[in-house]
């Protein structure tokens, strides 16, 4: 009999449970003694691998005292007489279950998913069909912020199993109790949404939860296909990998279909630029080359006629020989991998331990580059729920963090001339001190007016910078991979001058104020550069804010004209519809017009379908290779390395970006190593003919009808007379 309790034992005691004489170690609880002898006692809050707390009281039994006792916490005593199924006990349990069920959203998510909600099962076992008690008069919220786990506080019975799983078993110390009385519940960190908390998505809480309060969030259709050369990744194999250390095996089992192990041979294309996807790859073994198609050179037309004469006066200007004035600050193409690509030779190498495709996986952006196996490779392809688990995993982050920080600092900090004078020693110091932080969509990074405590580099995703003014909020910029922010507050008055918000899944390199100050003190050139950047940004912000105060008209705002920096307007009282503007635009851009002589009307003006160079350029959000961007002079341009995914065209609310086919030389998918002519899409939008003093459409209008204007200035008189 003693073997029922294993070998630790100690002194034994004799007791009676439901009339049956049994022996149990003196340290055992009634619950353990009964279960060891095959006598079931129902429970909700107790798990064998967690410290018993006796909060649900469902395991109450009669143990000879005046009141019922919770068997999971009451130790056995010699001669104790225990009754587990008396009428009194059963009545108490039924009452408890009825009270719990009265607030339970039956059937809860777990009951719907797998039919094994422990509360609902106990209620059925106890024959509870009707609830006599009123339902709670208020509802508790749901928390959908985590990619891997769904939280329904309504289904929580406060059994604390998740809290003990998180804190005792995994020792993550994320979960705890909050509130009192009817308002009590579990909370992540200081009651932050799960996805924004320090939760590492190990899954232990969800595995521990007896109800549908914490459930595995399976994305619809997440079973990854198993292509040739791939095998499903078994949880046992994954747990062998250091990067999955600490993750609940049950959790991995639940997400089994969302990760596959794939093998590639040299030359195999793993993913192709511009393709849509939903997976990320973790390289376990082997090396791969990441590249984008040879960038098309600028087409520069130095004035000229259409047809053959246009070709004579047009030339293809290579990237290096056509660097714009402001481009001295960026010499690389950002892609969705741990490396960036050089302008001149956009190819890089990825090796074991590298992860790529994070933005595609997390935010469904198109693939930013083509990845080919250089050697025999083994990779894990995963969907976002598994990637989320991986990215939050302590051991994975510890392993990759240093490398990511090094690359981020090397590429994005030292790659910028402003920071080029940083000494290797100082960069080493930064590497040790900076932090990688992850943010969910909508999460605020810093708020206007808050004390400035750090400087940030964007590693992944898009950050929206806004400034509030009386009566509204103005979008100042969208920052993407490689951009930095936070210098104005640190160099100036010490307070944030704008609010920065994560637009999607964002990862930042955070440099503390101490390190930042040490950097600018030690390297005066860096200080000067940052000060100049800060001054320029503040000057532009001041201009925008000043412009805001001049005009406010519903119809003007309704057409989004306020958002534009430069509008192509056609005076319809002058325009003879001769289309000279359209032909000029086509002539200036290799035969493809970037304007359509149609659009919304404002008074007698037609706002033509041509890039407005918006103050809030939504088109720039999500570009997987950062090819659509603002120049220092604020016009939005599309760079040569556009991969033609069309995201910017879909994002533009005014239909001002179009995709056009261009002929390029690209790798032959059927014959590795060979290059063939292929038609490739490329996004085009008005570039204001910046190489000329005036846009060609305006220059070519014979009737003085076409104008490129600042809408606030151009329409201000009109608005003033109409109001």
């Amino acid at each position, binding site marked *: 009999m003693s073997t029922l309790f294993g070998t630790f034992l100690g002194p034994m005691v004799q007791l009676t449970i439901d009339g049956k004489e049994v022996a149990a170690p003196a340290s055992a609880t009634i619950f353990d003694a009964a279960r060891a002898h095959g006598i079931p006692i129902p429970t909700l809050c107790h798990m064998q691998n967690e410290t018993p707390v006796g909060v649900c009281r469902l395991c109450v039994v009669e143990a000879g005292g005046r009141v019922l006792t919770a068997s999971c916490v009451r130790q056995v005593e010699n001669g104790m007489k225990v009754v587990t199924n008396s009428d009194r006990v059963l009545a108490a349990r039924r009452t408890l279950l009825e009270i719990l069920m009265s607030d339970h959203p039956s059937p809860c998510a777990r009951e719907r998913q797998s039919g094994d909600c422990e509360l609902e099962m106990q209620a059925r076992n106890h024959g509870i069909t009707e609830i006599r008690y009123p339902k709670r008069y208020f509802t508790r919220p749901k928390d959908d912020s985590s990619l891997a786990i769904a939280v329904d506080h309504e289904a929580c019975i406060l059994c604390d199993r998740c809290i003990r799983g998180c804190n005792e078993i995994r020792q993550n110390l994320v979960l705890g109790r909050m509130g009192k009385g009817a308002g009590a519940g579990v909370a992540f960190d200081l009651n932050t949404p799960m996805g924004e908390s320090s939760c590492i998505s190990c899954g232990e809480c969800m595995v521990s939860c007896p109800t549908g309060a914490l459930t595995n969030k399976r994305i619809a259709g997440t079973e990854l296909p198993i292509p040739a050369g791939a095998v499903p990744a078994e949880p046992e194999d994954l747990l062998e990998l250091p990067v999955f250390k600490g993750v609940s095996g049950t959790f991995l089992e639940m997400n089994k279909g969302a990760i596959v192990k794939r093998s590639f041979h040299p030359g195999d294309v793993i993913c192709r630029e511009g393709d849509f996807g939903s997976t990320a790859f973790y390289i376990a073994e082997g090396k791969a080359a990441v590249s984008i198609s040879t960038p098309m050179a600028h087409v520069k*037309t130095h*004035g*000229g*006629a*259409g047809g053959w*004469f246009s070709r004579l006066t047009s030339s293809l200007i290579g990237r290096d020989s056509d660097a714009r004035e402001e481009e001295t600050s960026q010499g690389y193409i950002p892609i969705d991998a741990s490396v960036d690509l050089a302008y001149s030779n956009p190819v890089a190498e990825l090796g074991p331990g590298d992860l790529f495709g994070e933005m595609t996986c997390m935010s469904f952006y198109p693939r930013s580059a083509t990845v080919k196996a250089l050697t025999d490779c083994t990779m894990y392809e995963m969907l976002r729920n598994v990637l989320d688990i991986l990215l939050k995993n302590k051991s994975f982050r510890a392993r990759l963090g240093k490398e990511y920080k090094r690359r981020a600092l090397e590429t994005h900090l030292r790659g910028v001339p402003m920071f080029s004078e940083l000494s290797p020693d100082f960069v080493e110091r930064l590497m040790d001190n900076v932090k990688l932080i992850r943010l969910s969509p909508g999460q605020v990074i810093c708020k206007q007016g808050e004390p400035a405590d750090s400087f940030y580099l964007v590693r992944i995703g898009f950050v929206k910078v806004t400034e509030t003014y009386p009566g509204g909020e103005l979008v100042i910029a969208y920052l993407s991979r490689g951009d930095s922010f936070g210098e104005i507050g640190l160099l100036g008055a010490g307070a944030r001058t704008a609010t920065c918000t994560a637009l999607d899944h964002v990862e930042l390199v955070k440099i503390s104020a101490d390190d930042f100050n040490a950097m600018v003190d030690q390297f005066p050139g860096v200080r000067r550069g940052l000060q100049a950047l800060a001054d320029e940004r503040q000057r532009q912000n001041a201009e925008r804010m000043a412009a805001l105060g001049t005009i406010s008209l519903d119809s003007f705002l309704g057409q989004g004209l306020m958002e534009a920096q430069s509008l192509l307007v056609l005076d*319809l*009282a*002058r*325009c*003879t*519809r*001769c289309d*000279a503007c359209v*032909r*000029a635009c086509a*002539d*200036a851009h290799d035969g493809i017009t970037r304007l*359509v*002589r*149609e*659009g*919304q*009307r404002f008074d*007698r003006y037609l706002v033509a*379908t041509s890039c407005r160079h918006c103050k809030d350029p939504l088109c720039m959000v999500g570009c997987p290779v950062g090819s659509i961007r603002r120049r220092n002079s604020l016009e939005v341009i599309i760079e040569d390395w556009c991969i033609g995914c069309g995201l910017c*065209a*879909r994002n533009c609310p005014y*239909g001002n*970006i*179009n*995709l056009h086919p261009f002929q390029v030389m690209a790798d032959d998918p059927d014959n590795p190593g060979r290059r063939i002519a292929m038609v490739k899409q490329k996004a085009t939008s008005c570039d204001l*003919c910046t190489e*000329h003093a*005036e846009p*060609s459409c305006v*220059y*070519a*209008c*014979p*009737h*003085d009808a076409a104008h490129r204007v600042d809408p606030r200035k151009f329409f201000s008189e009109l608005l003033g007379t109409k109001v």
Partner: protein
Amino acid sequence: MRIDETHRVWLVASIVILGAATAVYVIYALAAPHGPSGGSPIGLVFGFTGFGFMIYAGLLGARKKVPIMRLGRAQGWMRGHLWLGLLALPLILFHGGFHFGGLLTSILLWLLIITVLSGVFGAILQHYLPTVILERVPMETIYDEIDRVRDQLRVEAEGFVADLCGGGVPEAEAMALVPEGGIRAGGFTAMRPRGGGGVQYGLTEAEVEPVRSFFQTEMLPFLLEPSAKSSRLGDDTRAVAAFTKLRMLAPAAAHPVIANLENLCEEERQLTRQARLHKMLHTWLLVHIPLSLALLLLSVFHAVIALRY
């Protein structure tokens, strides 16, 4: 091109040139013993100056062929074309001493007169018609897109009627109107919102019959051939009367559909109006440009012959 206060400089300069030329001509005509002659030195100056103005005016066409070449703004060229082209006529008249001369010179002078008059006519059209289009065609589209928009209107109308009366527009036909390359590629026209789509009205066959009949017998033929004079829907006033009558015959539940159909007819009329005005705005060029070319070629011939012989 709209002739407004921005032309003041050109107007003043033209008046000065014309005044000076007139003064010179009067003095010259009074002083010439045999009257003014094209072959005299002053007559040749008038001739070359007038021919130079004609050449400049004619170069506008060439300038338009190289719209992005930085040879001066196109509107400057256009103003020069208008005013110098206009001045060419009195200068050439001064050149010929208001005589038509022989066959060639007569042809030349008549060509010049017609060309200048057609240009003045075109300038008047270009001054007024853009405003007319602006006011009378608020739903203006790109001229080349008119046929496609018409197809869209027809499919849209069939959709409204099908929703009300049953039946439907074949999906393939509706999709065929989506421009190649997707919705975006066509710009604003392609993004034009479309109506119709699955609204159920629950009316009996008898109740919807007037609408069906009206659509089949009047509206659909009008949409297919909007320029037909016989259709009353092509006329604003008669169309209002037709739809008012239809409303009286149909139940109230069908009135929103009738309103939509009326709007489509209005848009169709506007497209017809736009096409007509567009043609008026540009058709005069069919006279002006060939005559200008002929004038320039014959002028060169005349100059060579006159100077050579």
